[in-house]
């Protein structure tokens, strides 16, 4: 660590964007870390201030990095800011600088290295399925819980508690014909965690698209969209993933690229920024980004044609941060759920505040994540709903784990699973998650 200024010339956080901040503090009440700790340096205003001091020559110290790292990247501050500060761009640029220029502790590096060697690679995740199923179905899980080892190793405990109950795997054909007159040809991103641990969500996505008259293309060999990498400053890695995804879907020749994971969709819509420097990809990335749609967006855009059968239940809808704050998609999922007869949808208190999942945040920072998860769980349970609907696998795992910790129980499903059940005229049991 030197006394060199925090940032170098390669895409530092923009001074112009930093100067948009007028220090009004309207972002503080929606920031999860400020709501937990009440400390300026862990608020958007404080983090922007740190960036500004860094741009003016302050060094990138461990402390400074600690506060950048503690940011969940939920972007509730972007929604709240009256001055229009693009904090999302600022934190992404900052994280990339941190990743490149700062040396973390050995333990941190090992943990991050492991996560990034695993999560963006569906095939490697698949290798975990077998052992995880064995762990869950044999008595090993109960035994481990009883030893109390997990209480002393919060990160392992976090991973353990987040792991979903595994169901059967699903195989997708490369092309699925539309049901009835064809209205669009769409590509479908399978994702990584979604693909391996929640394949039924992908299955439901494909079925609903088909039912609504879409020909669905599921390109083989598609990989990770790079969301986790972008959100953690791993720029080169992210760009690699992005180029591969663009190549893959461009080849498939689809009008829209449909995504059912909020985090993935938000990053894919920003591929133009990610690949702005790359000759040969800059233009393609722009075009690609303009074709990306969240599943709820495309369904509302096309307009419903498939008949909905009643689903008489009380549900609560949770806004995933990367859908609501990052993409501004709030009304579409609500509209879709409102179109299901018999389904009552209740709002959750303090919807702007993150559940604490935030990508891999809950693995890296289990304590604050757990507190945030507990608050969200309490708010969810307070609605009295029997089903929690959300649009991100991370949120789903986080809230499930928190609810279970509080001894509560609630069924959980992705928005598209609820639609799928309604269209097929079946009841919805919710995703088979641990203990709920």
């Amino acid at each position, binding site marked *: 660590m030197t006394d060199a200024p925090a940032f170098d010339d390669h895409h530092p956080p923009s001074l112009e964007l930093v*100067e*948009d*901040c*007028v*220090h*009004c*503090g*309207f972002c*503080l*009440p929606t920031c999860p870390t400020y709501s937990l*700790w*009440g*400390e*300026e*340096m862990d608020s958007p205003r*404080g983090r922007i*201030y*740190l960036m500004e*001091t860094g741009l003016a020559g*302050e060094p990138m*110290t461990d*402390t*400074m990095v600690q*506060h950048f790292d503690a940011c969940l990247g939920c972007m509730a501050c972007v929604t709240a*800011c*009256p*001055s*229009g500060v693009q904090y999302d761009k600022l934190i992404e640029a900052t994280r990339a600088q941190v990743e490149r220029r700062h040396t973390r502790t050995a333990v941190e590096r090992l943990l991050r290295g492991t996560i990034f060697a695993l999560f963006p690679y569906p095939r490697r995740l698949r290798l975990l399925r077998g052992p995880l199923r064995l762990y869950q179905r044999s008595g090993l899980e109960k035994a481990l819980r009883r030893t109390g080892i997990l209480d002393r190793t919060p990160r392992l405990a976090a991973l353990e508690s987040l792991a979903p109950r595994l169901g059967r795997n699903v195989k997708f054909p490369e092309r699925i014909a539309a049901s009835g007159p064809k209205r669009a040809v769409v590509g479908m991103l399978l994702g990584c965690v979604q693909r391996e641990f929640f394949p039924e969500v992908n299955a439901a996505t494909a079925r609903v698209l088909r039912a609504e008259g879409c020909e669905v293309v599921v390109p083989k060999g598609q990989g990770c969209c790079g969301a986790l990498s972008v959100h953690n400053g791993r720029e080169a890695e992210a760009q690699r993933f992005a180029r591969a995804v663009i190549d893959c879907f461009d080849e498939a020749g689809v009008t829209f690229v449909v995504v059912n994971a909020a985090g993935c969709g938000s990053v894919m819509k920003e591929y133009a920024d990610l690949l702005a420097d790359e000759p040969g990809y800059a233009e393609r990335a722009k075009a690609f980004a303009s074709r990306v749609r969240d599943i709820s967006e495309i369904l509302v855009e096309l307009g419903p044609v498939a008949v909905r059968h009643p689903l008489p239940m009380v549900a609560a809808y949770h806004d995933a941060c990367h859908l609501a704050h990052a993409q501004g998609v709030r009304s579409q999922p609500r509209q879709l759920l409102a179109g299901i007869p018999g389904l009552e949808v209740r709002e959750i208190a303090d919807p702007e505040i993150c559940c604490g999942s935030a990508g891999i945040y809950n693995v890296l920072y289990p304590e604050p994540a757990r507190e945030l998860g507990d608050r969200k769980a309490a708010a969810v349970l307070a609605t009295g709903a029997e089903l929690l609907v959300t649009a991100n696998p991370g949120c789903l795992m986080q809230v499930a784990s928190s609810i279970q910790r509080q001894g509560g129980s609630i069924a959980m499903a992705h928005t598209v699973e609820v639609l799928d059940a309604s269209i097929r005229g079946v009841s919805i049991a919710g995703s088979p998650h641990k203990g709920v």
Partner: protein
Amino acid sequence: MDVQGLAQQLREAIGDEKVLTDRAQLRTYECDGLAVYKVMPAIVTLPETAGQVQAVVRACVEAKVPFVARGSGTGLSGGALPHADGVLIVTSKLRSILELDADNERAVLEPGVVNLDVTRAAAPYGYYYAPDPSSQQICSIGGNVAENSGGAHCLKYGFTTNHVTGARLVSPDGAAVQLGGKAPDPPGYDLLGAFVGSEGTLGIATEVTVRLMRAPESVRTLLAAFGSTDDAGAAVSAIIGAGVIPAAIEMMDALAIDAAEAAVRCNYPKGAGAVLIVELDGPASEVEAQFEQVEAHCRTAGAFEIRIAADNAERALFWKGRKSAFAAVGRISPAYIVQDGVIPRTALPEVLRRMAELATEHGVRVANVFHAGDGNLHPLVLFDDAVEGEAERAEELSGAILDLCIEHGGSITGEHGVGMDKAKHMPRMYTDDDLDTMQLLRCAFDPHHLSNPGKIFPTPRLCGEVPGRHTGAHPLQEQGLAEVF
């Protein structure tokens, strides 16, 4: 000053993680909402209990080190600007609502409780907390007490001082003092009345008892668009002249409307030279009758469009534009100075006209947002600090605007406080004798001049000295505890 020594003492008193000395962290506390002034504190403390606040103050008193209190850091007069050789005492971790006593219409709050959260907590009982500064979603009760904050609804309901019935504070010599409580009219001097609005110079509140108001039966809000601020001003005079006291009357001029539009898409009527937001509340029958009058007065004054909020959502949208105005101005100008002058309401049309003239003379734009009902102006003097000389002209214009307010018998600050920003303007409003007298109060509370020194008064008074002229450097200047403007 032995920073390390004091920091160690503080750590022992309140815990390691609540005492900050890391430079990066200290820097995030170097300004409040008035970011043009920055001073890095020597130490930042984040106490979690009243006892810890007292321990920090005591340690400062013993070490003869000045201390400054800070809530959410949204103040607009630099009241929470730290002292370079002092301790910043941040109250944001003292954020419990200690008691919500609906039967007695009171709430007991820690100073870090956010203003709006009081109303949220009282709402299920049919009550609310009336003072509503535009920053209420984040500003703290303790900060409100320090500044005697107002807000749009203070026209009818008064300011923080009219809603605080009690406070427990740590006085500047480290003692815990209770002033007032839940019941009205405590006997003795109204020290509580002097404490509210004392901008952190008379100690730090660790508990505040506030009055809750019964939610009104009916609330009706209208938005009226006029061709000019003159017309809108005439409407305001007519409404007040008719004996109607609305809950709020707010005005924004064309430039402010543009900024708000860019920020929050409030969709105010296009082409308006000024908009008025008028809100009435109270018993339904009363409100209905008065609302008709208000509408009629607006039309007579020349409103070309009048919108009446049909429901809470629409009402919130009317207000959204107004409440975001300050921050929104950042979108139409790289920098700005926000003023807080007050004039008698009847002087409004003339003052606005004269301000426009002054703005042209100085070659600087001014956006106007204000509480038209009580004459509290918030001219936003817009400038680009990258352009040569523009910052100086903006500063000059700000001073000229304050002079204009005083000329008309007004005040240099209606709700933002004097802080350090307007200390130099105090002599425009008060004589040396007036300021000397006020400082006798300060001497009673803070003889050692440690509680937020350098704020409010341009020339600090040495306690125990005989009033008179000073020659040479002031002793407090020599000690580095004060500056003379």
